[in-house]
């Protein structure tokens, strides 16, 4: 008789859970890829302002992490993603997207390049089988590192100061999207999901709590605060970043047909490098480029103060032309902001006379409002401190 390791049911703990659990006052948890992840630890508002004013720790261990190594590793990654990975230098990180054969986005993520023969891909969706399929016939190995590597996102204007006090002064000259091994087994990348100054730290699971304690101890003066997903999501939308399953539907996960979108439709046409040779979906994307976008994902500013999540968008208050995929009140910019999917030509050629239909509940009474919508070109939150190298102390 074999010895069976029964799998645990329900959500399981991340390597940082022992530290997060005592910090949770709100007791508001969610499931993220099977792990217990905080939605809110204390209050969304204070956690949000900690990101924009101090520094914060968010546990990103549930991200899927895959290591692709071998002589053909670069060829495999170039086959996978739309941009040219040969242009990402060693020790650099690239934001990447990858598509199916019809040019529909499978997922986006960050690609960490150790060397031409060694990459790590971080993403939301499970991708092992797809990576194995992509690497089939190539001299490359794919390893799922999701459980082996823990990750912490350190974000906010005092992040660098905290790092310095924690003994990671080596990070000082790191430019955005740099990454390096600052100590044996501790890798830092200057990346994040907030549009602000910030870093992500990666360690083997066994060293996770030591890393947390070291950062936490150094962070007192810099106002460090552990945060949950909701505060992060506010910053994410302010920065204009798209989220899988929210602003686009990963095409491998959809049951309903025609829910897939191309990177071009999501506003990432510049990340599709048609001249780099074949990559997955290239021929279909060429056809899409020729035919023009069917949709566009727009950044919009909405009148009034009521968040517009899920609102339908109308042209001339009559014709339904799209809907909000992510909408929040932005506490920093004091604007009512959103990402919205609009059906072509709206948002592309026709940009005026757009309206959002918002349902508001005020003390139990529902009310419908049509409010004007303005298209934006740039992210809602832009701050020079996010890119300064060396970074400012606060």
């Amino acid at each position, binding site marked *: 008789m074999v010895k069976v390791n029964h799998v645990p049911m329900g959500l399981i703990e991340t390597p940082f859970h022992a530290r997060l659990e005592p910090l949770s006052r709100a007791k508001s948890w969610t499931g993220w890829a099977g792990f217990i992840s905080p939605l809110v630890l204390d209050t969304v508002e204070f956690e949000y302002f900690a990101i924009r004013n101090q520094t914060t720790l968010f546990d990103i261990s549930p991200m899927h992490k895959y290591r692709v190594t071998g002589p053909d590793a670069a060829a495999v990654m170039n086959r996978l993603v739309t941009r040219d990975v040969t242009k990402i230098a060693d020790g650099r990180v690239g934001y990447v997207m990858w598509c199916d054969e019809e040019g529909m986005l499978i997922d986006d993520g960050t690609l960490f390049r150790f060397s031409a023969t060694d990459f790590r891909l971080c993403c939301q969706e499970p991708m*092992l*089988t797809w990576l194995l399929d992509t690497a089939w016939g190539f001299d490359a190995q794919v390893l799922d590192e999701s459980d082996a590597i823990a990750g912490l996102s350190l974000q906010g204007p005092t992040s660098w100061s905290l790092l310095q006090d924690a003994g990671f002064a080596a990070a000082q000259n790191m430019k955005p999207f740099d990454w390096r091994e600052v100590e044996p087994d501790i890798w830092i990348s200057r990346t994040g999901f907030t549009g602000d100054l910030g870093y992500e730290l990666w360690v083997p699971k066994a060293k996770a709590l030591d890393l947390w304690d070291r950062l936490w101890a150094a962070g007192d003066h810099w106002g460090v605060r552990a945060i949950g997903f909701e505060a992060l999501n506010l910053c994410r939308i302010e920065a204009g970043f798209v989220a899988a399953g929210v602003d686009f539907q990963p095409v491998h996960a*959809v049951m309903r047909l025609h829910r897939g979108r191309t990177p071009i439709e999501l506003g990432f046409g510049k990340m599709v490098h048609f001249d780099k040779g074949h990559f997955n979906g290239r021929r279909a994307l060429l056809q899409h480029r020729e035919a023009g976008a069917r949709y566009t994902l727009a950044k919009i500013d909405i009148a009034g103060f009521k968040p517009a999540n899920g609102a339908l968008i109308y042209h001339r208050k009559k014709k339904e032309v799209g809907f909000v995929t992510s909408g929040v009140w932005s506490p920093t910019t004091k604007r009512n902001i959103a990402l919205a999917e609009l059906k072509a030509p709206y948002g592309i050629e026709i940009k005026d006379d757009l309206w959002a239909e918002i349902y508001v509940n005020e003390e139990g009474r529902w009310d419908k409002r049509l409010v004007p919508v303005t298209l934006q070109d740039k992210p809602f939150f832009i701050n020079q401190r996010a890119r300064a190298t060396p970074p400012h102390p606060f």
Partner: protein
Amino acid sequence: MAKHDTYDAIVAGAGHNGLTTACYLAKAGLKTLVVEKNDWIGGAAVSRSLIDGWTYSNCSYVCSLLRREIVRDLELPRFGLQVIPYEGGATFTPEGDYFAYMSDHDALRRELARHSPRDADAYDRFSQAVIRQCRFIRPFLLRNAPDPTSLRPRDLSELLFLVKQAHGLGAKELGETLRFWTMSIGDFLDSYFESDLVKAHIAGAGIIGTGLGVYSPGTAYVLLHHYMGDVDGAIGAWGFARGGMGAISNALGAAFEEAGGEIIKGAGVDQFLVRNGKVTGVALENGDEYHAPIVASNMDVKRTFLQHTDRAALPSAFTKAVERFKIRGSSAKLNIALDRLPSFPAAPKGATFLRGDMHCSTTLNELERAYDDWKDGRWSQDPYFDMLIPSQIDPTMAPPGKHMMTVFVQYAPYDLEVDGVRSGENWNDATRKAMADCVLDKIAVACPDIRERVVHAEVRTPWDIEREVGLTEGNIFQGELTFDQLLFNRPVPGYAQYDTPIRGMYIVGSSAHPGGGVMAAPGANAAREILRNIGKGKSMPDFAA
């Protein structure tokens, strides 16, 4: 003194489809009679108490396909129908391991990854592909199959609907659909998974009730047939009817009677009465005769026309088509009363997957060999079974602390071969026991103490099911679910819209489109046909809208 009476419509057979038809006819104001040969109603959707305290769903045993449109429309919950989803399932190996299906997606991923990290991802892609197919096919279940040779506006509009649905798929998906409908479940699973155990666990749904093997083209569709149902909108989910499958028939029967219908039990049909190409009623085995201008047969098409209809009333080409319609007995059933829950040493304490479907077949080749046995007239020496203990969820099925186990066995032939002779007559207590032993030996892989737990067991071979329920060869679908017997080919090309060569006579059971399973769609579709033909089509809701 034989009884005579006249009705607007008579339904022969009180199976779930016959009762569904009857309900709709009665609700449309027709004076409707249902005659049933057994002393109970339900056909193959029955709850029987064969030993005090225990209830057996002794034919069909789980529920998913029953169309929710019909349940809602006939208000079956008001007549006691409750369907409770079950939580998982497992396949046990002789080595003491298992693969468990869990409704908790995260746990399922971990469990899949335990067997193959690759298959954990593959499962999501597989279920996405299957659900896409389900979403495509579900709108067709409550519609008529179009006759592709006809130019009638209705057929053309049904064809147009089909083309429209197909058009909506796009080129890639249409190609995938063509392939899916024509593939074997084995090849389909091989293209997704690497773990034998995972494949074997899923593959069962591709062969249950059929005379096909896991590598026979067309079995991917059979899997779809088992996945296209739902419990409260959760596509592919299965559940127990509280009180056993008879709860469905009883609710239908009650709804029918409330609508003014009449059921006569213990009244087997001897002959469908036909005069001048038109049906006039039924003559019962007991000599009674009932007359009606509309007669709907819930019996399968072979039984209806080859046993209870005067051949002279039928065109010979039709009779021949009925003769070659394939209804093959391929499954048996064990219903077992247990003195307590058997032990499952491989399972962790409190495992929820024990409350689902359990199996002990671990490879696709093992399943294929099980089919090879059946082709040669033997029950599978290493059988596949679908085993459940509904009393874990449904307290009405067994006395407190005791349990009821239902075991569906694939494959068992109708015409068992003994000493070179193939015949249903070869099923007797000795062969029944030998088959049951073979099954129990394999159940012992999962529950070593199974034999000690048995208080009472009922063994039902295809032969037994035919004799009791009336299903030809005991086939659960009233006809093989192969492409040559689906849609406009079911049951007979040219008569695929519940009609027959005899005016006023209809086929309303699973022999008709869209086929078997406790779905009630053939019964409802047939009722719509009947009512339309008498100018009362508007009295039925248009589910397909």
